């Protein structure tokens, strides 16, 4: 491993590999009603309202709200306005389905990884991060440079 590079291992929820700038959400968000079709947070009650999730490695404890979030995420992935990867502390089935459907229909693999609360606390606050997940052995690897 390169000097200065750090990594964390979690449980893979959806396979894929990508990287991007970190975006850590202060609160969970519902994609349905909370994110517009450009990938911008529009929930006025959310502290990061106005921030774009497109291309980011999105980190949040879990998703929130309606099962229609599946369709919204699939639409964002189709339109290439979705996050590059997602990291949760609690598996969000509704969002995992969105990733599975997009892989099926559009052959776009968005990695999703679940971390324990302890590992979650070790994620840096900002910077570029890479995520690689495989669901054969359910291993998700998160790497960044310090």
């Amino acid at each position, binding site marked *: 491993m390169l000097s200065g590079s750090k990594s964390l291992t979690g*449980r893979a*929820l*959806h396979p894929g590999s990508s990287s991007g700038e970190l975006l850590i959400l202060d609160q969970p968000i519902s994609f349905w*009603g909370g994110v517009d079709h450009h990938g911008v947070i529009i929930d006025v009650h959310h502290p990061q309202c106005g921030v774009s999730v497109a291309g980011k490695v999105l980190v949040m404890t879990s998703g929130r709200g*309606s*099962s*229609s979030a*599946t*369709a*919204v995420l*699939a*639409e964002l992935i*189709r339109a290439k306005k979705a996050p590059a990867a997602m990291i949760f502390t609690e*598996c969000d*089935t*509704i969002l*995992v*389905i969105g990733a*599975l*459907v*997009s892989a*099926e*229909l559009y052959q776009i693999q968005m990695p*999703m990884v679940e971390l324990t609360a302890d590992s979650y606390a070790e994620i840096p606050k900002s910077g570029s991060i890479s995520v690689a997940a495989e*669901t054969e*052995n*359910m291993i998700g690897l998160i790497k960044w440079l310090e």
Partner: protein
Amino acid sequence: MTPPKLILTELEQAMLAGEHGPAIAMCMRLIVGVAKANQATRLIEIESAHADGCLYHGIAGLEYTEKLVELGGKVKVRTTTNVSSLDLLHPDLVHADATLATNGRRLMDAHLALGCEATWTCAPYQTGHRPEFGTQIAWAESNAIVFANSVLGARTDRYGDFLDISAAIVGRVPFAGLHTDEGRKAALVLDFSGISRELLEEESAWPAIGALLGDIAESKVAAIIGLPGDLSDGGLTEDRLKGLGATAASAGGVGLFHIVGVTPEAPTLAAVVNAKVETIKISTAQLRASRDRLTTAVGDDLDAVSLGTPHFSLAEFENLAKELEGGDKFLPSIDFYVSTSRGVLERAEALGYAQILKNAGGRIVTDTCTYVTPILNPKIKTVMTNSGKWAWYAPGNLGIETILGSVKECIASARAGKLVRNDALWF
């Protein structure tokens, strides 16, 4: 730590490998992907499904469903359809733009091509689709899920778009969550014994209980004690449980509740709790606060009334007709809507209830609902409803102010052209 391994039967492996056709393989990839994410160790067979992917949300849902049709997909179990974006029986009621009209219809047609029944209702359990106690099912639509689990004692996890139709096609779901005995145990107890019997006889108490349940339980299973009556004595009716569950599933992620002495899995509290769990005593002030969250309007101006979310039952139609018969018409300034299924409407027409509503000036919506598709006149600002679910979603979905009231109060208000509501029992 090694994650639990998903074990598929030989038949399931063959389905996944494409030996039973490409549509089944495509659906199996989704089911298996979800099973792995949820750490399920096996799949279980289901006896019925209710699909909510027929409400149009965008291209991805349409492309997924039409791809299944193209690949020759057919549902393996009885599958009813949830509300759509259109009212096929009253097409003039929905002001759909060209995209919604075309794609909404294509999505409905694709579901029928897959072998789903054209029920187009969020209350399939009141129009002939009532799974038996203990059966494993895959239902979508939050109110239908909580009703099937809680009132019928069937077993479904909280499913939504894509997974519902895929489960119907392979006849299987991951064995996890509310499908398991363990997942159905209550994690907390709510005690309503401090609420007066008179207040519990108020129709609006039930959506208020639902909002409070959703708020406190979030997505956990709760057991409720201290509610009087049973399903047969006319007090705790099926429609009240329907309203309670629909509101709880909106305000929180409730997929199952137990009412001790009422719902079928809870003859006693001991039957639904494992160890000692926290009991929360509910006060009248808390219940009133929950009811008040379902009213956003200030003042007594009113533009419309919307009943039937979830879809009106035949019993609700009968009660409405009794209240309306021989009385004044609604004022022309008030639009009065009742949403129901085409199945219930057919019987309500045969029994004359529908005509009584129309004579009073009411309009009937089928196949869809007044808060999920453009039906209301854009000038409408304030709507009264008996539905906690409608009141929960309409401010965000439609930008409308809401007032929660009983059916009687909704009728009185529509006749008066302004809010008429009796708050005496709430204080």
